[in-house]
């Protein structure tokens, strides 16, 4: 990405000098258009008086900063609970789906399919309204049920993607099914699926903002409180401009962890056993 790397794609050949010149002109035009749009947005912001001191000084008040920080803390608290619980639930449901007992397998399949098909918000509202639970437990429950069932599928795919020879060798050594799963399959599955697991945690982090809709006092809720304050001249746009970089930044950080994990994994020889099968041609020649 540092240079415009000239690699051929199905779409076009490596450009020659004349084409490169033309592409450069396109690039200049596109940059000009984007600069124009940004300038227009900034003009609009000034035009509607979004940068008045009355709207921005509140952010220097200690109370306001504490309110925002408390909201951020609550968001992270909900995320931590939801992440841990959904990892546990995911593991339980995945074990259920891989069970040798048919009823257990069926029950876990139905649960996983149902919770994956339901919108998270419906589950959160159901727990919040119908079961009359406090906002935090309601939010955590909804997030856990949804992300837990998605993670169950991720774990199951991971376990199934471990090369067959690994399982067969472990059984041949006389290990029990539990031992095989815990000592042989699960570690390799988790390693192979780590990027996907982290990406799912990003979804959980993003969805904690649904707590705003059930009046859980999280980050967005704190922002809303400030934004609807008449004393500060309803600083809605400033609030969005403060909140969204923090939110997006947190999610990007976690997404970046997922990218890092997957890049590290590609270099790691230890994942070769599963790497080949996730590439799409698994179990053709086990142990090859």
């Amino acid at each position, binding site marked *: 990405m540092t240079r415009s790397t000239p690699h051929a*794609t199905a*779409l*076009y050949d490596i450009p020659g000098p004349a084409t490169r010149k033309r592409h450069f002109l396109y*690039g200049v035009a596109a940059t000009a258009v984007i600069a124009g749009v940004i300038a227009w947005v900034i003009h609009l912001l000034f035009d509607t008086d979004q940068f008045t001191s009355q709207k921005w000084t509140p952010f220097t008040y200690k109370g306001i900063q504490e309110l925002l920080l408390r909201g951020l803390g609550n968001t992270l608290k909900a995320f931590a609970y939801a992440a841990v619980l959904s990892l546990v639930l995911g593991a339980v449901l995945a074990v259920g789906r891989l069970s040798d007992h048919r009823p257990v397998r069926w029950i876990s399949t139905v649960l996983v399919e149902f919770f994956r*098909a339901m919108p998270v918000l419906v589950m959160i*509202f159901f727990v919040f309204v119908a079961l009359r639970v406090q906002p935090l437990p309601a939010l955590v429950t909804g997030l856990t049920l949804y992300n837990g069932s998605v993670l169950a599928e991720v774990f199951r795919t991971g376990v199934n993607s471990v090369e067959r020879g690994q399982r067969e060798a472990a059984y041949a050594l006389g290990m029990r099914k539990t031992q095989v799963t815990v000592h042989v399959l699960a570690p390799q599955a988790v390693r192979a699926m780590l990027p996907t697991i982290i990406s799912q945690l990003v979804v959980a982090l993003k969805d904690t903002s*649904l707590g705003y809709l059930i009046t859980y006092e999280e980050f967005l809720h704190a922002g809303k409180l400030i934004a609807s304050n008449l004393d500060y001249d309803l600083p809605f746009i400033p609030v969005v401009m403060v909140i969204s970089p923090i939110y997006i930044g947190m999610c990007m950080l976690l997404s970046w962890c997922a990218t890092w994990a997957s890049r590290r994994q590609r270099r790691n020889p230890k994942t070769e056993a599963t790497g080949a099968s996730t590439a799409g041609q698994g179990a053709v020649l086990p142990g090859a």
Partner: protein
Amino acid sequence: MDVLTDNFSLYGRGFLGTVELTVYASLLAMALGFVMASFRVAPVRALRVIGTVWVTVLRNTPLTLLFFAVLLGLPRFGLVLPFQLFAVLALGCYTSAFICEVLRSGINTVPTGQGEAARSLGMSFGQTLSNIVLPQAFRSVIPPVGSTLIALAKNSAIAGAFSVTELLGTYKTLNELGYSIIWSFVWIAVGYLIITLAISALFHVMEKRWGVAR
């Protein structure tokens, strides 16, 4: 059972609201996603940067925050539109980032040799694109686009919390009318299941018809 039969029109309106929201937002997401995907595979670096920024930012934005900013923020700029249109805008833009990635990886699955062969036959860029690359990309893209659109249908529930008429929002009225909350939620769940299963069936048929034979 009474809850459904007594309030059929209410449920119907909510159901249609969700369907409408899903359809319009899907169209917007497909169009925008296509534009952004073409930016991301373009030979011009500035366009690639635009596409990458669009995707990275939107994929990491909580949808509630986007709804919050669009539905309550844009009116501050004097842009007053019906809430439904705002909801379509927010949902469509959010999903376009995911569609873009799906389309891009679809285009990348087409082997380089296909394009090279087309060009060596003297095909122009447009011909290569419309006769060689896109048809092949389309086939491999059907299942992931389907699951993205199912996610969109589920995400449309958030619009209900911002006072747009849709399925989840019906529980409020039913609650005030004093119906059993549990049953009203059961029927809401059934409504969502119908929508998601319909989308998944549609894409299953498309996959059977045009998908890559495995």
